[in-house]
């Protein structure tokens, strides 16, 4: 990396989210947000802090504990011309609001023959590792990606946290923006002005030639650690940060797979039926003859998320498990 003249500004992931939201609200008076504790209290993770003071109760809306009505509020406001951001505090709580997300928001445009436009952003926080147990730790993106009509992004770093949020809010479709709880404090370079990271475009965060690691969200950070570890053993990992999981930038993945011949998909979600399955399937469909080995998958085991730190440490994929997965795929 080159050092820019002006010292680059760093910001934490959570703060980058907050800055993106603030700036787009300043730019576009149709943007508002609503959710539990996001107004006066600034959000349980502090992601919305200070915005209610600036934008008031009508644009930084505290709601009752009513996830269905929260998402519905966004749908109704979006279809009548606003650009809502609605927050579902933990991704696990999406199950409470799944009808509004999957049967309403995702399908409205189609059911209406294209008439409706739904510039709705649903923000949420996912991920394990905080001893928050089975109902506060899930990564449920596979479920959302299976529902036509939704777009889903999962930023892995502060830069993307801001840029993808802006892209989601400007997008004319229902988007789900998934923060990872354990990334909130991660610092990184974040430009001060308003910018977009385009939806649907993967990012090669580490070029390499031996094996392709396809991942997103917090597992990008763990995969990079694994790549460093393996670099010492002469294994040159290419790490692809999908950034968006729906739509999938499968071209970026297959291009890389054709180059390296080996591919491992990594996510925090449960392995069985996770997004890794879809990616593995598409890769073998499109690059069958280039593969030296089966597409590997690293993900959580088939159990609910346990509470006890010892168990959770075994549950959540990490750099070691990824290293192991890569070794396995490479037959090392």
């Amino acid at each position, binding site marked *: 990396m080159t050092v820019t003249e002006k010292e680059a500004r760093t910001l934490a992931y959570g703060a980058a989210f907050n800055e993106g939201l603030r700036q787009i609200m300043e730019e576009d008076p149709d943007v508002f947000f609503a959710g539990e504790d996001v107004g006066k209290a600034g959000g349980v993770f502090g992601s919305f802090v200070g915005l209610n003071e600036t934008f008031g109760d009508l644009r930084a809306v505290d709601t009752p504990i009513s996830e*269905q*009505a929260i998402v519905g*509020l966004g*749908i*109704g406001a979006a279809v009548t011309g606003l650009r809502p951001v609605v927050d579902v505090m933990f991704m696990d709580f999406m199950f409470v609001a799944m009808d509004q997300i999957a049967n309403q928001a995702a399908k409205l445009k189609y*059911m209406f023959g294209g008439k*409706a436009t739904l510039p709705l952003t649903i923000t949420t926080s996912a991920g394990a590792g905080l001893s928050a147990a089975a109902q506060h730790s899930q990564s449920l993106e596979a479920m959302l990606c299976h529902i*036509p*009509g939704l777009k889903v992004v999962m930023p892995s770093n502060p830069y993307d946290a801001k840029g993808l949020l802006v892209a989601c809010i400007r997008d004319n479709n229902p988007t789900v923006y998934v923060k990872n709880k354990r990334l909130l404090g991660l610092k990184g370079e974040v430009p001060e002005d308003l910018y977009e990271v385009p939806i649907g475009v993967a990012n090669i965060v580490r070029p390499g030639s031996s094996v392709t690691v396809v991942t997103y969200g917090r597992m990008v950070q763990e995969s990079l650690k694994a790549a460093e570890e393996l670099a010492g053993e002469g294994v040159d990992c290419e790490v692809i940060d999908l950034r968006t999981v729906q739509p999938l930038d499968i071209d970026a993945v297959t291009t890389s797979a054709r180059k390296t011949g080996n591919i491992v998909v990594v996510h925090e979600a449960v392995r069985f039926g996770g997004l890794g399955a879809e990616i593995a399937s598409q890769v073998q469909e499109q690059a069958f003859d280039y593969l030296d080995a089966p597409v590997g998958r690293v993900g959580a085991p088939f159990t609910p998320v346990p509470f006890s730190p010892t168990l959770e440490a075994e549950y959540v994929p990490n750099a070691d498990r990824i290293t192991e997965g890569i070794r396995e795929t490479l037959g090392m």
Partner: protein
Amino acid sequence: MQLSDDVLLDMHHRMVRIRHFEEAAGRLAEESRLPGFLHLYVGEEAVAAGVCAALTDDDQISSTHRGHGHLVAKGGDFERMMAELMGKSTGYCKGKGGSMHICDLDLGMLGANGIVGGGVPIAVGAGFANKYRDDGRVSVVFFGDGASNIGAFHEAANMAAALQLPVVFVCENNEYGEFTPRDRTMAITDVVDRAAGYGMPGVIVDGMDVVAVHEAAAEAVDRARSGQGPSFLEAKTYRFYNHHGIQTLGMKYRSDEELAEWKKRDPIDLFEARLAESGVLTAKDAEAVHERVAGEVEQAIAFAEESPLPEVESLYEDVYSGVAQ
């Protein structure tokens, strides 16, 4: 409230339009000329007509699986409706939605809904947008007695009250959810008893009396429009046909006698008698309205039948906005 002749005639027209559209749809379904499920609004016309006559074109409504009546009352176009019911490309939803998703966003009709209670939070969202823009618009939620038992209704009603949104909740209490009578699914008789639990005023009206519905609705709409928040209207009504389709007699879950009792209070008959009595509309003139509307329905059927089916490629369109297809 003294209603002008114009308003009375307008409401009559809306009711007659619903009735003829629905009767025709029912017939077509019986002849297997309509695909899918069909939930008819016959018997409940006074509710949609009385409420929608209290709205401007800019106000919004959200609807249920039993949505034709609401769309017609809001000014829906017969041709595009009938074409949609037949799954034609000229339909409101290009044939993609059908009866259960019929809508006209230009008329503020935010859609029928296949999920019981699914439309309630959406209308509350529209109400929020109205308040946000401070544009004086009001949104109305239609929902059934059965729908009042589902969580989405509860959450949205409370949210409308908590945020003091310009929303009117209209419960069409027809005493049944599908084939199950109200007293098997709730311990209360009047759904309006729920209003106090949200902190909103509520009234019961005779849902077979379009004037009563209209007056109560107008008051609730005024209240919402002037920033005083949501209110709740329960209209006691009855569907003359089966939950879906036509069948009337010999239904296992409700007696022929019960149906006959309610039919004596046919909302259109009642209203026409009243209009004739007060000299606003003679029986003959009413007849003429029926004939004209019947003709429009026939024309819509012809339009729909002649319309093309959707191109197969259109299956893949309209999933996302702004995506080249």
